[in-house]
């Protein structure tokens, strides 16, 4: 009897974990092609950088093909490098040649009342005094930061014209795979950050908009699949 239960659970869990991996979009943050590890020091060209936190919202995900389009029924996902499960979004598409999503949240989500789950302000992605969500958050230390402690924090958000920061991303899928891996190359972002003037952006505004516009270029398929 006990053995039977054991076998049952074994099968049950393998089915569950299998189905989780089966059809999914996985976000993999990389730095110069290598998977990013938090709190690890990366050196390049005489500079060093250490990432402490990377979080961003992904919303309105869809996969479209010639005949059909899959649309994510779940509104928004918080992708948090610290939480490995959050890097996966499961999908239900059988085929497709185009993946699209937004980095960040639309304005109606920003002005709705209090929300649960990934949108719970307790997740630290919410500004209370100028209500609205932080769409993209990158924090750490870098030799390039002008601050004495070399800290940097880029909290990019804002939904009102002209400071809206939500960005659309479109990735062509050349060959279909149920498991779609999307890399996020932070190396492309770093040269564009205002290390010397404002290594600490904590409010909506021009600076946040400027950096946000670069974000879509970071997303790519892994190079061996291109």
């Amino acid at each position, binding site marked *: 009897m006990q053995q039977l239960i054991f076998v049952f659970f074994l099968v049950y869990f393998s089915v569950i974990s299998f189905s989780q991996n089966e059809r999914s979009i996985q976000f993999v943050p990389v730095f110069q092609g290598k998977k990013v590890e938090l709190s690890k020091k990366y050196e390049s060209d005489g500079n060093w950088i250490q990432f402490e936190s990377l979080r961003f919202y992904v919303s309105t995900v869809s996969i479209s093909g010639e005949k059909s389009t899959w649309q994510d029924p779940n509104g928004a996902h918080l992708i948090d490098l610290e939480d490995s499960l959050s890097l996966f979004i499961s999908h239900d598409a059988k085929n497709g040649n185009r993946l699209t999503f937004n980095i960040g949240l639309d304005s109606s989500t*920003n*002005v*709705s*009342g*209090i*929300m*649960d789950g990934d949108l*719970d*302000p*307790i997740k630290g992605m*919410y*500004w*209370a*005094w*100028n*209500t*609205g969500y932080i769409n993209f958050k990158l924090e750490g230390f870098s030799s390039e930061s002008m601050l004495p402690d070399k800290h940097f924090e880029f909290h990019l958000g804002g939904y*009102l014209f*002209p*400071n809206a920061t939500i960005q659309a991303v479109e990735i062509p899928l050349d060959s279909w795979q149920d498991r779609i891996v999307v890399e996020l190359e932070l190396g492309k972002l770093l040269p564009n950050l205002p290390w010397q003037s404002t290594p600490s952006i*904590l*409010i*909506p*505004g021009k600076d946040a908009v400027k950096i946000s516009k670069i974000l879509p270029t970071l997303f790519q398929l892994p190079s061996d699949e291109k």
Partner: protein
Amino acid sequence: MRNSIFLLLFAICCITAVAFRFEKPPKVFSIQIPKKWPRPVYDFSKNPLTEIGFELGRKLFYDPILSRDSSISCASCHLQYTGFTHVDHAVSHGIDGRKGTRNTLALINLAWQKSFHWDGGVTNLETQAINPLQHTAEMDNSLSAVIKRLNASSNYPSLFEKAFGKKEITTSNLMKALTQYTVSLISANSKYDKVSRKEKGIFFTEQEKRGLKLFDAHCNSCHTAPLFTNTLFASNGLKIDSLLKDTGRFAITGFPGDSLNFKIPTLRNIEFTFPYMHDGRFKKLKDVIHFYSEGIDYQSPYLSPHLKDRKHFTEIEKKDLLAFLYTLTDKEFLYNPRFSFPR
């Protein structure tokens, strides 16, 4: 056999217990919208008011458990007898990306407001309360610590379960409970209201009538009846404060034209909500009237067009205006036992 009877009895007990719980969901009520008032802005559909939710919000509002050292509650700054504002002194603020000192706002007829705080930076009443909870200058408590403390308390989990059907206290249930209380703070029983409703035996004095006329001509465009605010922002000609250089709405929108624009506050219960203005610069209501007569900065490029026609009030006119403003006092609201410290 005995065992199975026990089991059966146990099962029946369980089923009735569960059924009983589902039998009486908390009773939903709606706020009383005073006659001829506009529709409320707050979306009650996502947070239907229940007696038990309201009482929970009221308890939380008065409970210092929300602050880190359990020393202050919402009511420490928002006192019922003074229109739910903090008399005496201005309150210091220091939030991400902005520093300033702002005078506590009165909590009156919030259901009709589109945005909150002097700069309108908060767009929904439900999320407003995150501010005092997170804010070092205020209750100095992080959201997760508050949630943890409430979940660990002996009484709150069961109260939340009764109100929201879930024992676990989350940010959203906490905010919704507080909102059920604050959104119910409706003041519509001042002398002004009773006269407007033509209630028996209540009339304006001649002085109040003259005050109303002046008010309609010079104030009502912004402090529009019946809310005594048009819920917009404006610069009423105050010079920038020398200490904090608070630019108000500009910090939120980034539009230069919004400089020195502040929320147009309600004037209901204005007799008791001193000191006045976003920085509390005027102690007395007659100082405010004196300001509108003598103090407006006409050089300011931000001054609202509604105030560009110079108006000098005579001493008698000032008294008339004051007399009218006193008719906005609603003692039934200020002393309503339903809103007071829960016993």
